[in-house]
């Protein structure tokens, strides 16, 4: 193992320029992937925030006894999709309307009778905020005898749904394309490193080195390069994130896990890229 490490480090020391070039290439490839990931992460978060506002409102018939309402509220809260069910009384609805609809304050002030119905406002758990589940829950709400009407902005929910699907599909395709390009570029730099050392590989084979022995230092240095590239890419992404935050918009950065994934992705590309290049080279000589 010490020998493998020594040989791997020797590869760096012998070709510092090429090694630096590989690390830089890997870093920028992953940086492109990372930037795209950052956009995806932020878009997703924005969509999630919008989706959080998905709300189903069940309007109640006037004169529904408060006991029934409390009971129903308990029932609804027990639905697997439901995060919360809040009862808004007729009075509270009016108070809210007065506070929110400033333009109509005078009209509302002059009312003799409260025209607003009481309601139960239902919020869904994350993962259920799509058209299908919203419809299902709405149907179930309609089943309560004292529920007059159920509203949830059907169009809006469906649009959001589609937007999320499109975002996911585009993210997947573009992300995969970026990753593929990164893999190809990284593979090329690794192949260059292998070719640069082909004389040495030939001599190793001549004196009786096994393929595994020849391969191991390359795998290790490939993994190290990939990891360094990944770390640099995270650093670059962070720089970009700071700039965006300062000059453009309030954005989110990767979570620790996402950043870790980028570094691991880099390490694995380095590892498998080297394995493929060395393997191909060894099969040919």
């Amino acid at each position, binding site marked *: 193992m010490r*020998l493998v490490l020594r040989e791997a480090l*020797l590869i760096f020391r*012998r070709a510092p320029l090429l090694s630096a070039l590989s690390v830089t290439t890997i870093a920028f490839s992953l940086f492109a992937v990372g930037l795209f990931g950052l956009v995806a992460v932020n878009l997703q978060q924005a969509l999630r925030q919008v989706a959080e506002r998905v709300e189903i409102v069940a309007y109640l018939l006037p004169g529904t006894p408060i006991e029934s309402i409390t009971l129903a509220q308990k029932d609804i809260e027990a639905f697997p999709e439901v995060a919360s069910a809040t009862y808004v009384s007729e009075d509270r609805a009016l108070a809210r309307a007065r506070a929110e609809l400033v333009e109509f304050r005078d009209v509302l002030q002059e009312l003799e009778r409260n025209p607003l119905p009481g309601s139960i406002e239902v919020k869904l758990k994350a993962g259920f905020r799509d058209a299908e589940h919203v419809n299902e829950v709405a149907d179930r709400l309609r089943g309560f005898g004292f529920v007059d009407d159920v509203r949830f902005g059907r169009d809006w929910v469906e649009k959001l749904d589609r937007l999320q699907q499109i975002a996911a599909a585009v993210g997947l395709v573009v992300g995969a394309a970026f990753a593929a390009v990164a893999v190809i570029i990284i593979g090329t730099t690794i192949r260059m490193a292998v070719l640069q050392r082909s*004389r*040495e590989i*030939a*001599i*190793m*084979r*001549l*004196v*009786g*080195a*096994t*393929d595994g*022995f020849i391969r191991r230092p390359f795998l290790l240095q490939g993994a190290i390069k990939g990891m360094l590239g990944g770390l640099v890419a995270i650093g670059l992404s962070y720089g970009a994130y700071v700039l965006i935050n300062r000059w453009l918009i309030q954005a989110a950065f990767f979570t620790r896990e996402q950043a870790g994934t980028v570094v691991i992705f880099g390490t694995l590309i380095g590892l498998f890229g080297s394995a493929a290049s060395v393997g191909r080279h060894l099969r040919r000589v």
Partner: protein
Amino acid sequence: MIKLTNVFKAFPKGGLALKDVSFHIAKGEFVFLTGHSGAGKSTVLKLVYADEPPTSGEVRVSGFNLSELRRKDIPMLRRRLGIVFQDFRLLEDRTAEENVAFALEVTAARRATIPARVMRVLTQVGLAAKAQAYPRELSGGEQQRVAIARALVNEPTVLLADEPTGNLDERATRGVFQLLRDINASGTAVVMATHDLDLVRQAPYRVIELQEGALVYDSAVDELRDQAASP
């Protein structure tokens, strides 16, 4: 030890490099492989160290049947051979000592024994004083001695040398040749490809001559026949 039986070798591009070559080299022999440029000397050696497979015929080396050799067995075969080339093939960024040690490190040699074994062979080739020198700091003759030390360090039963003196002046040639003779005297078989006929004449060793891929003369066989022919 080394036995070729009716060996043919055709390269994909290019004609027949070897035509029906058969010979047997015994343990401890010293054999010159001669012939004009392109006669097939290097090709014979490549078959012996499994760099190329024979197109047909049988090649046996130190217990291995090379026609049936699998890729993963090649390193095991090479560890029993020492190989030396005209162009030395040293690693430029390692010292003489490291170049020699390298050949041990790739094998399963015990790490602790390596430095002593390396110094022993470097002493044997007369380069103990230059152990720390890099190839660029050594003369051609000295580089070839390092290459020979590297070939010897695994204690091979055969040393294959493809024109080992091809790049050396007369003095260095004599030195390297003497070294190969000493190595042979201590029991290692040596197969030396060369077209330096002066060298061949200097020593009473067996000569195998190739011409356009065919074996045209083998002193071991032909001298016996000559002796039998004369009364």
